[in-house]
């Protein structure tokens, strides 16, 4: 059983290492995630934490490891601190534009992409978005696939996307790749995939009252009768 108040030391083991949080050096035990290192060093975190499970993208971080010139992106609830690492929680708030659209009024979703996200076709292939993605998605390729109308492939590639938005500020063509992909994916699901027949059949059954008699019987039972009826005879 864990003491809930020990949340800031979960994972701690071994030696103390030095990390830099927003430019200040702190000694923290090895084994902490970046977010736990924040709590460990007395930081209250309001913006910058969400599901704590690596799914919501709220804890986007920018960091650099020792003696590496490269700035990296990651998720603060999933990335472990290393000796000599420097990082900050970047709050993942960008005043970017998400196009507003009505899926019900779109007849040609692939053409519509150029109306709602015209910048999508201006990708200059710098690959910064792919480098920035903490989920390992080939974002640049996804943008091109969207532009060429392969929405099905885009929807598969971006199923892992947590919408952390780290691909947005790095784009030199002002594309918000995650939003482009989400549009393509939604259009694929809503407009370009045939509706499932089994589901339609079941809805028709329900609406025609197929189960009405059974419900009448069940809802008039007392607790004991329902209990008996619930035992599987199959």
């Amino acid at each position, binding site marked *: 059983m864990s003491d809930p108040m020990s949340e800031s030391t979960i994972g701690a083991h071994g030696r103390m290492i030095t990390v830099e949080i927003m430019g200040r050096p*702190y000694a923290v035990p090895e084994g902490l995630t970046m977010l736990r290192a924040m*709590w460990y060093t007395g930081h209250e975190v309001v913006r910058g934490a969400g599901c704590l499970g690596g799914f919501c993208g709220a804890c986007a971080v920018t960091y650099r490891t020792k003696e590496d010139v490269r700035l990296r992106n990651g998720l603060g609830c999933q990335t472990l601190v290393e000796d000599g690492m420097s990082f900050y929680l970047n709050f993942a708030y960008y005043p970017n534009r998400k196009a507003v659209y009505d899926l019900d009024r779109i007849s040609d979703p692939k053409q519509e992409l150029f109306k709602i996200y015209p910048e999508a076709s201006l990708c200059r292939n710098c690959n910064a978005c792919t480098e920035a993605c903490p989920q390992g998605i080939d974002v640049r390729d996804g943008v091109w696939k969207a532009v060429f109308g392969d929405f099905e492939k885009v929807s598969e590639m971006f199923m892992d996307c947590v919408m952390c938005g780290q691909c947005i500020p790095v784009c030199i063509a002002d594309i918000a790749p995650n939003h482009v992909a989400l549009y393509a994916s939604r259009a694929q699901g809503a407009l370009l995939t045939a509706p499932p027949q089994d589901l339609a059949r079941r809805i028709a059954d329900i609406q025609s009252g197929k189960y009405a008699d059974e419900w009448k019987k*069940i809802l008039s039972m007392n607790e004991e009768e329902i209990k008996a009826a619930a035992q599987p005879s199959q």
Partner: protein
Amino acid sequence: MDPIEESKSRVLTGRDERRALTIPILTPADKDRLVHAYHPDYKKEEYHPIRIGPNAGERTVREVAELLESDSPVPAGLDLTPQYRVDVLVVGGGGAGATAALTAKALGADVLLVTKLRMGDSNTVMAQGGMQVAITEDDSPVTHFFDTLRGGHHKNDPHLLKVLVEEGPMAAQWLIGLGVLFDRDESGNLKTKKGGGSTKPRLLTCSDYTGLEIMRVLKDEVLNKQIPILEFSPVVELLTDPDGRCSGAVLKNMDNGRFIIVSAKSVILATGGSGRLHIEGFPTSNHYGATGDALVLAYRTGAKLAHADTFQYHPTGSVFPEQLAGALVTEGIRSDGGHLVNRNGKRFVNELDTRDVVAAAIIRECAEGRGVKTPSGRVGVWLDVPMIDLLMGDGSITKRFPAMVRQFERYGIDIRKEPVLIYPTLHYQNGGVAIDVEGRSNVAGLFVAGEASGGLHGRNRLMGNSLLDLIVFGKRAGSAAAKRAKSVPAGKLTLSHVTRFRKELEKNGIKPKRVAPIILPDYVRREAITPAALIKP
């Protein structure tokens, strides 16, 4: 050999023998005996009486009892001049809140959505197992009803449950219309998987990203409909009119600490559950803001709670690596045939029994010395993930569980080759604020949807019913709230229920142990901070 490695080798070598073994689903009597002996819900010493309010006389866990007897953070003389006047105030940015907001908006209501984190940061986003909908030929809403009832120990409200199962297919259709990409089979029908406690396969999935896919789409649609959203603005108190009807709420802007007053004809609480209360000291799979806000907010206005003493401990929370302690390992692993194995290499429960039974069985194994100790002192049993590739062909794990592969890969564990160690983790608030089929609490103007509500799931939620609950009852609450807003004028804004509640605390000699809603758990370490030398560039 290291005892962990030794035990692990027994998992890998004993597969044929284990597959030959059939473990039946427990009978109701055996199930009762097991959960009474080992499930945390039945640990009497953890339970305290509720002393005031609509549920006075009942018992619940200490953490919830303290929450219900807490003081309000709002000072008595607060200026209640509203900054916002709306028809419907939706509190919570997860699946239920988004669905309620979209539904109310579609009916012409003026909607404001407020949330304590960002829109979409929720438990919904982490739901991996899927959504139960009875669509296959040999399944029916009635079968779904009885499966759920058995899972809930027959304590589910049958009227709520009938709505859930019968509106399930329509809920799925609505999501598909918004662009949610559920997995399909070769003929284009929806793929279904069997979940624990279910007699038929009826889980709809988007690989192991079902909740993420649903939440991503719902959030995008809320933005498309241009519903105003206030993020980092939790409700810290409700407002009532002189007759006790809910008429609005006090929010707190977490960036500048100021209160924000909202007048609303209907208020929908969709604030989720309470895992971050760490009930009985358990780690949790829940998001950062799951502090049971709806329970205390609604309770102070006089709303009755249902089953507020029962919680779901998901059988398979990770215990190793330590960094993932409490994080969920999806039930999908067991649906696809992964075995639970104790230290001695033996199976000990039907992996697809209901969650309370499987959790209790794991606790029993560990309590009786058949668990595996991790280097940091936790204990757990094995979940044999790599079996899935053996059963379903190479590459199945990568294709079906990309999120989990990624999660463990970060710590150098390849779940395609190695079993993982698990122990139950605090996962879901089975009960909550009692609602009727329209999502109404017993306080006029106050609606509740999703995990915050109570009655639907009985004493143990069947897996896959939570995502469905969000959509079906999010829609119901959104619709009823919008209709109410059309027929009533905006109510007067008072804190009279808070005054009454404070008097009741005093009369009963109760000194509140805390101020609530808690909003965010306090994980900040108070000890001295070790200085460090500057890092050289």
